[in-house]
């Protein structure tokens, strides 16, 4: 059964200037000659490197052991020799160890058929252990260790939402996965159900993927999984966990422990981990931008150089002024193209010069557009002025903590005020002061 639910409030229609991926196909990216694999690709403590220079590693071999529960395993994405172990700075600005692997040797796993391991008989602990061992983290950008997210006492979860909405405009990886890996994703949903025994399970897809609904429903029926497909509007930032849940439950968004949303890419990774026993060594990401000749959804090995992927898609270096990791709205601008793809890299967007230059900020004319588009029902212009006056704590009192920097306000502002960025800084300061400014995700 299918129905369409609206955003409770707010949101913007995706910026149309940017082309999405040319087609829905997932293209395998070329293997990197040298993979640079950071030990910190997730939320939490960095993994502990278990290899040293000169070691020979096989594909999928554990090279970083999770440092305690608040961490995740890291595996070699390509076979080869450890050329170096250096400290690098990630796009987020964090520093961590990274293992440089020079491609070489043979592939034991890739391309070879894998036998499905039975899992239905397993209990929650074993399932979670398989997920943990494979180093699965949230692939929707959050990169929160999945074995932590799904470790809950059964029955406490009323709603399980499989999130098939790409979380930013002009990104198409989740849509592509739904088209090519529906059975795997559905089995992933099944695994989640086994773990959570939720009251209700929904596979939420975007309007862009609406044509898939019959197919998805067929797959679900064949798999005998009790789940329902729901189409949600393509408006940004509908893909955000809280907004998916809010739309499904028809209420304003808020942090709500009784509902769990899992990205379809994560579900696919869970399937591979639990059923195929394959660790997380690659991910699907969208490479796009006005200066990119052939935008594609690439399936890239973790540790592949960002620059290589852009080249592969035909980026014109002369015209490119700015490259962001993530999406056009919330992506992080990177200063070097040598950064590796990590588990958290949703996409790579290249901007031309005139797109990149920041528009001139003018005075706020109190038009209220930011209030209208804010999905969290905040008053961005007032919060902005409070922060500007240095009254972060009052801003926190007025709900600054709910801001997720989705960027809708900045996008809608006719005066081109960088509302989202300023609110983000203020929120971080306020939460540092520890007066209720904490982010809630």
């Amino acid at each position, binding site marked *: 059964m299918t129905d369409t639910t609206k955003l409770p409030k707010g949101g913007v229609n995706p910026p149309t200037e940017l082309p999405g991926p040319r087609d829905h196909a997932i293209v395998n990216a070329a293997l990197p000659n040298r993979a640079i694999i950071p030990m910190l690709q997730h939320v939490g403590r960095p993994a502990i490197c278990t290899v040293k220079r000169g070691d020979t590693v096989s594909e999928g071999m554990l090279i970083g052991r999770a440092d305690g529960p608040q961490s995740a395993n890291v595996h070699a994405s390509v076979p080869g020799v450890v050329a170096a172990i250096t400290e690098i700075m990630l796009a987020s600005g964090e520093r961590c160890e990274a293992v440089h692997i020079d491609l070489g040797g043979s592939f034991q796993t890739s391309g070879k058929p894998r036998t499905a391991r039975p899992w239905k008989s397993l209990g929650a602990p074993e399932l979670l252990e398989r997920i943990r061992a494979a180093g699965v983290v949230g692939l929707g950008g959050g990169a929160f260790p999945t074995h932590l997210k799904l470790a809950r006492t059964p029955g406490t979860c009323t709603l399980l939402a499989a999130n098939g909405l790409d979380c930013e405009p002009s990104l198409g990886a989740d849509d592509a996965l739904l088209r090519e890996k529906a059975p795997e994703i559905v089995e992933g949903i099944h695994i989640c159900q086994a773990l959570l025994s939720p009251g209700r399970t929904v596979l939420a897809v975007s309007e862009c993927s609406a044509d898939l609904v019959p197919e998805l429903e067929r797959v679900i029926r064949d798999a005998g999984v009790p789940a329902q497909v729901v189409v949600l509007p393509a408006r940004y930032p509908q893909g955000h966990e809280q907004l998916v849940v809010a739309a499904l439950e028809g209420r304003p968004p808020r942090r709500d422990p009784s509902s769990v949303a899992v990205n379809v890419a994560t579900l696919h990774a869970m399937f591979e981990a639990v059923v195929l026993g394959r660790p997380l060594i690659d991910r699907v990401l969208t490479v796009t931008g006005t200066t990119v000749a052939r935008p594609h959804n690439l399936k890239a090995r973790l540790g592949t150089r960002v620059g290589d992927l852009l080249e592969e898609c035909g980026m014109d270096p002369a015209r490119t002024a700015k490259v962001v990791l993530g999406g056009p709205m919330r992506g992080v601008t990177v200063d070097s193209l040598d950064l590796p793809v990590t588990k958290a890299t949703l996409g790579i967007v290249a901007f031309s010069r005139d797109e990149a230059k920041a528009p001139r900020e003018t005075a706020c004319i109190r038009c209220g557009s930011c209030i209208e588009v804010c999905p969290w029902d905040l008053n961005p212009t*007032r919060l902005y002025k*409070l922060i*500007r*006056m*240095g*009254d*972060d*704590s*009052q801003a926190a009192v007025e709900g600054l903590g709910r801001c997720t920097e989705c960027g809708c306000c900045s996008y809608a502002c006719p005066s081109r005020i960088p509302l989202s960025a300023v609110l983000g*800084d203020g929120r971080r300061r306020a939460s540092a002061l520890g007066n209720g400014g904490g982010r809630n995700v």
Partner: protein
Amino acid sequence: MSWAAIVFTFALVDNVVLSRLLGLPAAGQPGARPTPADHAADDPSIPDSLTSARSLPPGGREGARAAAVPAWWLGASMTVLMSISAVGAWLVNAWVLAPLGFTILRTPVMVFLVAGLALALQALARRVVPSMANRPEVSVPRLGVNCVALGLVLVTTRAEYGPLQSLLAGAAAGAGYYLVSAMMGAIRERLDIEQVPPALRGLPLQLITAGLMAYAFMAFDRAFLARLLGA
């Protein structure tokens, strides 16, 4: 003068704040939450850069939180004080001053009357709603309150109203004061977080705002009243 006319006159036409200038609500006092803006009023250099946002000393913050006094409290205390003192003034005037011919002593007597009533009210408020009354910035015998009440008392006694008319006038004036203080509070709330010229921040802008509001309220003039009520 009909009852409605009295109400309109004292609430809008002869508004105690905008037309008689008896006291200025929310001038660095109740109705508005002190923000860094108020402290920034001292130094003309409010940081424009977003990164170097100034944070207040904790004392200042506590003060800021404590000073958030609902406008209705101000309006209510005003209205009560004004109504009572208007009636009291009428009684004193009619039964004491006029018979004895001490009209020259009207001013001191009225001053004591209002001041006494104000103190009594404050004592009472301390009993009934200590949460409100114990805040220094809302102590009922504020200068403003005295001023408004006394001015009103003098107006009514000179206008030779009856007791009920005086009561009504007091209540209406209180309502008018509440209306204006609410408006000015809301406007101040807006201005507090705007980058206004430093020299004008605070009291000067309060005065200018009141001036502009007074122009707006000029729409309610006596001719309007006469046509509307046929008075």
